[in-house]
């Protein structure tokens, strides 16, 4: 299949100084889609297609994109939750890609996850105290567990008395705090949060955002934040990587990327995020993307975005743009960036793909 033979992209052009807390290079992952009678895979979907991610200590990398863009899979690969088909993962400059057994278990203490749905992430039959201290037990840390539970709950601004309760007695926001406390139990280097606020109300979301900010200021862990909620990402992230069909199309400092997106997809995505101010929102012009994203099992040739791109050129079908450094610490994968600034003429409606 053509997309399986694609050359890997050049490594990040950003000059590395001290080793980042986490660096993933050339991550690839495909999943079997269909098998024949002999159980041989006849069709695969490439979920992550040569992705580089890097997050410095004490900072947050936001990973955004539509559903099916591969952002969650990329985060899971970086967190070693799912074995990658290719690529390397380094924690504090040490290559941990091949870690297995005991070494992998020790690494788990450094890479912790918080998931979207705090209702399914907690065992309903176990107490909150059990949930937050289980990582300590698994990793053989000694000490008074009740004391540890109280300290962890206090750290996430919960009443230590909740340790004896079960998840069903807690609100959604409290449960998510419990999940954060559990992730912090082993003092991880990197916290990977996959849609941590999507199931929550506005005010509850604000509380979790404040908590994640405060914990990072206190403990300096790096964070990878996966979300389709742009307000959340924009609020927490120092840098943002935008994914489309398994690839990063733009990466850079959050403020600049949001203020002046360069890739046509980033522009379209940002223009679709409604701003909660009617005067501002109603004066904006939206870049319209036609249709749904293409079938990930059969992505378009060349630039994956070209079928929906308002400024695509004929050569976009041939050239597969690599992520290339531009001014201001940004990287963009678009042949039109750096040559002529893509303008957005009114797109025409095209029939299918």
């Amino acid at each position, binding site marked *: 299949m053509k997309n399986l033979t694609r050359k890997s992209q050049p490594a990040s052009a950003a000059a590395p100084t001290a080793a980042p807390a986490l660096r993933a290079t050339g991550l690839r992952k495909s999943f079997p889609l269909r098998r024949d009678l002999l159980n041989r895979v006849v069709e695969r979907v490439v979920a992550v297609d040569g992705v580089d991610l890097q997050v410095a200590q004490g900072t947050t990398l936001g990973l955004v994109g*539509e*559903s099916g863009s591969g952002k969650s899979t990329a985060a899971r690969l970086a967190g070693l939750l799912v074995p990658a088909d290719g690529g390397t993962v380094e924690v504090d400059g040490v290559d941990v890609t091949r870690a297995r057994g005991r070494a992998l278990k020790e690494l788990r203490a450094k890479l912790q996850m918080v998931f979207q749905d705090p209702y399914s992430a907690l065992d309903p039959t176990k107490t909150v105290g059990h949930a937050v201290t289980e990582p300590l037990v698994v990793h053989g840390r000694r000490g008074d567990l009740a004391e540890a539970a109280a300290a962890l709950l206090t750290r996430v601004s919960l009443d230590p008395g909740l340790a004896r309760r079960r998840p069903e007695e807690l*609100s959604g*926001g409290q449960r998510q705090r419990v999940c954060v406390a559990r992730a912090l139990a082993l003092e991880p280097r990197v916290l990977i949060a996959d849609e941590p606020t999507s199931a929550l*109300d*506005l*005010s*509850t*979301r*604000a*509380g979790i*955002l*404040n908590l994640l*900010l*405060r914990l990072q200021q206190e403990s300096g862990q790096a964070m990878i934040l996966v979300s*389709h909620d*742009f*307000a*959340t990402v*924009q*609020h*927490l*992230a*120092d840098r943002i990587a935008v994914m489309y069909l398994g690839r990063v199309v733009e990466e850079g400092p*959050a*403020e600049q990327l*949001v203020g002046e997106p360069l890739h046509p997809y980033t522009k*379209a*995505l940002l*223009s*679709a*995020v*409604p*701003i*909660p*101010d*009617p*005067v*501002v*929102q*109603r004066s904006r012009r*939206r870049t*319209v*993307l036609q*249709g*749904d994203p293409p079938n990930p099992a059969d992505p378009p040739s060349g630039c994956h975005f070209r079928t929906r791109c308002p400024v695509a050129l004929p050569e976009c079908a041939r050239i597969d743009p690599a992520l290339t450094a531009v001014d201001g610490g940004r990287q963009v994968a678009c042949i039109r960036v750096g040559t002529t600034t893509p303008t957005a003429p009114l797109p025409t409606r095209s*029939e*299918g793909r």
Partner: protein
Amino acid sequence: MTTVQSGSDPVLAVDRLTIDLAGRTSQPGLVQEVSFSVAQGRSLALIGESGCGKTLTAMAILGLLPPELRVTGGEIRFGGENLLTASRRRLRRIRGGPIGMVFQDPMSSLDPTMTVGDQIGESRRLHLGESRRESRAKARELLDRVGIANAARRVDVYPFEMSGGMQQRVMIAAAIACEPKLVIADEPTTALDVTIQAEILELLRSLQDDMGLSVLLVTHDLGVVADFCDDVVVMYAGHVVEKTAVEPLFAQPQHPYTRALLDSVPQTGRARTMLDVIPGRVPPAGTFPTGCRFQPRCGFAEPDVCDAPQPEFEPVAGHWCRCVRVGTHALDLARVA
């Protein structure tokens, strides 16, 4: 067609709607004396946190409250008819007819065993007595209208063969199949990507322009409200706490709850700063405090004032606010930093 401005007779008028747990009228209403109206061609947002009664209110309008809940007071007038006294048979004719419905999760609202063409056509067969052939032709037209490419082929497709955005378009096509006056949409874009959300809102907007459709939108997304709605009703713990047009609501919120809700949203240019959080949470039904229901969480609450029974509130220049302290000019949020 022109969009009719406010001032004409409302399409929908909800007046002092009260909903209680069946047989437990001693407890304060889950929805208590909620009043608002939707004018022709306009869209009204019902906003508030989970558990504030937004969806219950919408379900009561449709006559779809779960059996353990009862409407114990008020009126819901739709085109001169009180829906609360309408027969079940009459309500069935109204739902999917003059009132269309769109829910959050299209996959669980669409019948997985019926083609999308049959589902869209179903309401035309039921409500307008059209034949299969007529309704099928109409379904194709409607799919085209909601921006589904290749409508002639897609009428024979099953819901699972479509993406979430496409399914929601099918829901909208079914909702507008009988040329309704009002569409009630409960979180119609919450499960969708922002790009698809923007397209769905654009579609609803163009249907409003073409058909003079009124929309009642239940949402918790303030961006969607700012983008799409003309008027806003803010609910808290079963009470309406503020109602006004969309611009003054965002520019000069008067009720402390509205203000707190707006302040909990991240602002551009203030990244990585602490957000204002409303302490505590919405009280569970049946434990609502007396007087102002927001008062235990309110930063401006005054003892013996806010927990006393509340008077009637009157709108000032079209802006209605349920707050004693604002009503007596003791509190002006515009002057509070």
